[in-house]
Structure formats: structure tokens, C-alpha cells
């Protein structure tokens, strides 16, 4: 369809209109010649890595994610406990979920594969994933469909999402710092709290279509010596 005559006619017409509309822009002006002031901040405030992790925890909580903190050895027991409390029996996991994360959990693991349909996903209780990074200032988790995160749909259809953030390594301060580290080639999902709507008389209701419960586990490794 890209090469059809209708396609090129529409394209030529619109681009022609654009050019005529911009008759006042000097011919020699290149896009970069149009100034863009970039004196805004790369991050808001100076923080130690530990402070950034604290801020992330606070901001996540602020948007009604449930935050837990542990160290690497404590992770399997904590995940097992959280799934038990939730009453989760069937848990979907990405293919590359690190060995051992669910070693202590008494659940049936459903591995994310291309054959796993949306309907099948609708029948699982929880999903456990890692993330690409987390943004402290905004309380945001970013998933990039990496091996420990899986396809976008697995963190969408189940009603309960347990997301593990490795701190402080995966924690960045701000939106600009996050974009520097992300690749646009990968499909990205930014998550800030459970899904919500204020469409009915502006009353905030948690959880419409995405997971109604978002639990975040911050796994804190000792800071590397600087």
C-alpha cells in the first residue's frame, strides 16, 4: 500500500501544502538553526544513590504502589511471602526471570511464550518481573521487554504485578536521565502506580484495566565503593 498511487498523491499533496505554508521560513534555514534553549535541569536536586532509592520508595507509595525493601539474599523469601499473602496459585514469569527469585514460592509458574494467549493470561493470578530502570522523582518503573520482563502483555492482563527493582543500580533520578539510558528500538512501558481513572466525578479509582495491585520490591545491594 505504501507505493500505491493514492499513497503518493496524498503524500505529495500534504508535503506540498507544508512547503507553501512555510513560505516565510528562509530557504537557507536548517532545522538546527531554529534555537532551542535547553537550560532546564537534568535532575531536580542532588542526591546520594541511597537518597534516590528512598525518594523512589516514597514516590511509588504516593501513587499507591505497595513498596517492600529487602537485600538480595532476602528476595526469594519475600517474593514467596507476597505471593502467598495474595493467594496466588498460577504466576506468569518472563523467560529470563533470574534463577532463584521464585525458588521458595509454592506457585505454578507459567512461562511467557508466543503461544501464551491473552485469554490464558487472563486466567493467571499474578506476574513477577524485573524492570529496565526506575525513576525516583516521578515514582516510575520502566519496562523494556527485556528477558527478565517479557512481552508487554504479561504485565498488563493479570490483576497483580510484582516488580523487582535492583537498587541503586537501576534507579535514576529524573525523566531526562531515564531517556538517556533507554533504547527507542525496544517497546517501552512506563508504569507509575496502578492504573487509575478519575472519569467519574473526578473520584480517583485505582485499577481499571491494568493490574489493580502493583507491588514493588526494592532489592538493595550494598553501594559499590566509589
Amino acid at each position, binding site marked *: *500500500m*505504501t507505493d500505491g498511487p493514492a*499513497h503518493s498523491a*496524498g*503524500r505529495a*499533496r*500534504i*508535503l506540498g*501544502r*507544508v512547503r*507553501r*505554508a*512555510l513560505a516565510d*521560513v528562509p530557504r537557507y534555514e536548517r*532545522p538546527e538553526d*531554529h534555537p*532551542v*534553549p*535547553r*537550560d*532546564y535541569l537534568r535532575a*531536580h536536586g542532588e542526591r546520594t544513590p541511597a537518597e534516590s532509592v528512598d525518594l523512589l520508595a516514597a514516590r511509588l507509595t504516593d*501513587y499507591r504502589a505497595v513498596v517492600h525493601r529487602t537485600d538480595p539474599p532476602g528476595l526469594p523469601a519475600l517474593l514467596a511471602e507476597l505471593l502467598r499473602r495474595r493467594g496466588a496459585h498460577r504466576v506468569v514469569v518472563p523467560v529470563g526471570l533470574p534463577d532463584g527469585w521464585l525458588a521458595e514460592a509454592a506457585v505454578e509458574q507459567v512461562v511467557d511464550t*508466543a503461544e501464551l494467549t*491473552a485469554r490464558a493470561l*487472563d486466567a493467571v493470578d499474578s506476574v513477577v518481573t524485573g524492570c529496565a530502570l526506575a525513576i525516583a522523582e*516521578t*515514582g516510575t518503573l520502566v519496562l523494556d*521487554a527485556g528477558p527478565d520482563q517479557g*512481552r*508487554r*502483555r504479561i504485565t*498488563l492482563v493479570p490483576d497483580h504485578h510484582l516488580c523487582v527493582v535492583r537498587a541503586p543500580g537501576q534507579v535514576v533520578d529524573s*525523566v*531526562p536521565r531515564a*531517556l538517556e539510558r533507554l533504547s*527507542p*528500538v*525496544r*517497546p*517501552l*512501558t*512506563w*508504569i*507509575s*502506580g496502578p*492504573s*487509575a*481513572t*478519575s*472519569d*467519574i*466525578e*473526578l*473520584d480517583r*479509582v485505582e*485499577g*481499571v*484495566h*491494568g493490574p489493580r495491585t502493583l507491588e514493588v520490591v526494592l532489592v538493595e545491594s550494598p553501594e559499590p565503593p566509589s
Partner: protein
Amino acid sequence: MSRTYLGMPAFPRAAAESTRDGTLRANLRHATHTIRAKRAAAVAELEDWERLRAAGAAVKDRTLHHLDHYLPLLEENVTRAGGTVHWAADADEANRIVTDLVRATGEREVVKVKSMVTQETGLNAALEEAGIRAYETDLAELIVQLGDDLPSHILVPAIHRGRREIRDVFRDRMADWGRPAPEGLTDRPADLAEAARLHLREKFLRCKVGISGANFMVAETGTLVVVESEGNGRMCLTLPETLISVVGIEKTVPTWRDLEIYLQLLPRSSTAERMNPYTSMWTGTTDEDGPRDFHLVLLDNGRTDTLADEVGRQALRCIRCSACLNVCPVYERAGGHAYGSPYPGPIGAILTPQLRGLASPLEESLPFASSLCGACYEVCPVAIDIPEVLVHLRERVVEGGPVTVGGNRTVIRPAKRHALERAAMRAAGWAFDHPAALRRAQRLAARTRRVHPRRLPGPGRAWSDTRELPEVPEESFRDWWARTRGERP
């Protein structure tokens, strides 16, 4: 069936509606004032807000001034990433392209994410004509669609509906569209949201075609961005096999890095959040994750005509945050429907007349639907000088002059005086039951007259011609409209 804006204004509908007006106004007032305060706090948190705002405006200006460079670049990168790009010069073309694409899949139903651009083109009606059912999946859009209604606010399109009305709409209409509302549905927002979740989930799991808009398109990477709250966007963007995104050409930004500006400006300015619950970004297609086929329909539909106006083109910077609606005294009185397009409030007052041309009394009246108080400019995250454009468009209406319509430059004649006065009066109608606002507006109009020394009719002139302010009883804009247009109340 979905209603369209064609043939608007048709304000007076049923008698039931006039009783709703009280609710409408109360809801709007509550909504706009709540969001306003929260937004101010979210913005105050960023000490560099003004710098972000300046950068946001500048990046959009750079893009607009070089759209002939960025659009082909965007096309190239979307195509390289596995997407297919289509170009639609107007609404009919866009609807035809989308209809053909859906037909080619053999499917008869689609799920849709809230998209103002497809409201602008009247896509749902076009699909319906082709025997394709479009399901709106945004909660507010669902309320609007089930209630056979029109959206009235950019961000909260069903703001004019109270919870009891929503319960009734769900109870009475859901069954016609799929899974019925649960027995004994209450009017608690959480229960209503749950009913919507159940009703829509079935469609998400079943539908093989999704239709969306986009908030941003990155030219250098071919990435599209959708910002949302409920997760219905993620459903439509990732579960279907075919995704069709219809996007206005002005949504382009040059670089990946530019997103760092808008992803700070938009959520804070729009929902007063540090970040909205979900943002999706995708570049073409990805093996085994999300749709196999991705189509991007680039829409002009009056945008290049708007671009041709050196003063008016700044309206194309708009990132649809709706902050200007929430501070606008005219919007608060008139409600979203009065603007006769999917774009209500101050942005609608400058965008609609430019997208459609000054084609009818409605478009001619819109630039007068303002007291020029300037609050919209103050809050606009991309610094669109809405009052400047309003005054510019008023001048065009009054004095005539060059405009571009459908890509052709023409000269429009001055509006006839009586038509003009009527237009101004229509837009000003809301003020007659608000003498204080009126006085303030007159002062402002007088001030502006100095800047534009020739004739500036508009509310100022119309009002000053009225020797005595009529003693009008509490009357809504709609009622007033109905009465003065002599239509059935």
C-alpha cells in the same frame, strides 16, 4: 451509534437536557477548580518549569518550521522499523484509509483508545457505515458512547455526567454493546469502574484490530508515544494483531531526547501528576510482542492551513493537556459542547476556526468566546499565546483578509455586520448572567483595543453597544442559545 459534531451547533436537544445544565455547570465548576489547584502544586514542584516550557515551545516551533524535513524523516524511520505510513489530506481520506485497512483484515469490530483526532474525522460513524463496530475503551469515552452523547472535556470527556446518570447508562445500555452491567449495579465509582473493566475485557481479549492516536511521534527514531491512565491504551496497543494509529502531523517532535521535555510538561499540566500511570512507546513492530502489522495514518485536515498563518500556527504546538480549559471562565459557564468540536475551551476557540476555516457562524463566533483574560496563556505548558491568536482571528473575521483553505490561499470578505454582532453576542451570551465577569472582560477588551487600534468588535464592542445590561435571570449558555436562535427548547 456515535454522534458526530457535523451540523453543530445543535445545543438544544431534549427538555431533559436543560435540567441537566445545572448538573453540568456544577460538575464543571467542581472539576475545573479541583484540577486547577492540584496542577499548580504539581507544577510548583519543578523549579525549572518555565525553562521546560520555553524549551517545549521552541522544539515544537522548530518542528513546525521544518515539518517538510521532519515528516519524511518520520516516515522513513517508521517504515524501517516495520510500520506502514499513510497520508490523509482530510477527514474523509483518513476514514477511507482506516476503513480499508480494517476491511483488509476481515474483521468487523475494533477496539479504540481515546483519540481526539478520530473524533475530529468522525471515524466511528464512517466505520459504522462500513459495517464495522468501533468500541471506545476509555472509561469516559465508553460512558459517552453508551449514552449516545458527545465528549465535553479533553481530559474528562464525561465530566458533564454525574455518577447516577453513569449508572443508569451502564445498566440500560451495556447489554446492547456486549457484556451487560452486573445485577444491582450501584453508583459507587469503584463499582462503575469494575463494570467497565468486565464489559471491556471481553472485547480486549477478542478484538484483532486496535485503533489509537498518539501524543508524540519521534522523527529521528520513528517512535510513537501514548500517554494514559487506565490501561485501556496498553490493551489496544499490545493485544490486537493489527494496530492503526491516526495522528495529526503536528504531533511530530524531532528527537528521542525531546521527549524528556514533554514527559515532564504533559502529566503535570494535564492530570496534575508527576507521571501518568501508563506511557507506551513503540517503534514499528516487534517480533512476538504486540501487533504484527502497524499502520500510521498521518492526518492533515486543516493543519497545513493553520501552519500557513504566521500568527495562528502556534496553535499547532498544543499537546492537549487541557490546562487552558480548566482556568477559562467562559468554558466553565459554557461547557465543552458549546464549542462544537472535539476541541473545547480556549484551544478549541483558536484551533477549530483554523482547522475548518472560518466556514460558518460557529467558526466565526469561536474567536469571540473569550474574555481575553489571559489565564490560558499563563498555564499553557507550550506557551501558546491564545489571546494573541484570538485577537488575530477576530480581526480576520471582522476585516477579512488572506487565509488558506484546503491548501489554497484565498481572501475572505469581512463578515457582515449583523452576522458578526450575532456571532459575538452568541459567544458572549454566557456573560450576561455574570455582570462581574462582563465588566472585567470589557476592561480587558478596552485594553486590547489600544493594541489593535482599528476596529475590535467582539464581546467588548457588542457589549458596549448594549446600552443597558439586560436583567437576565439565571440562564445557561445553552438555554440562551436555544432562546435566541429560536429553536425548540
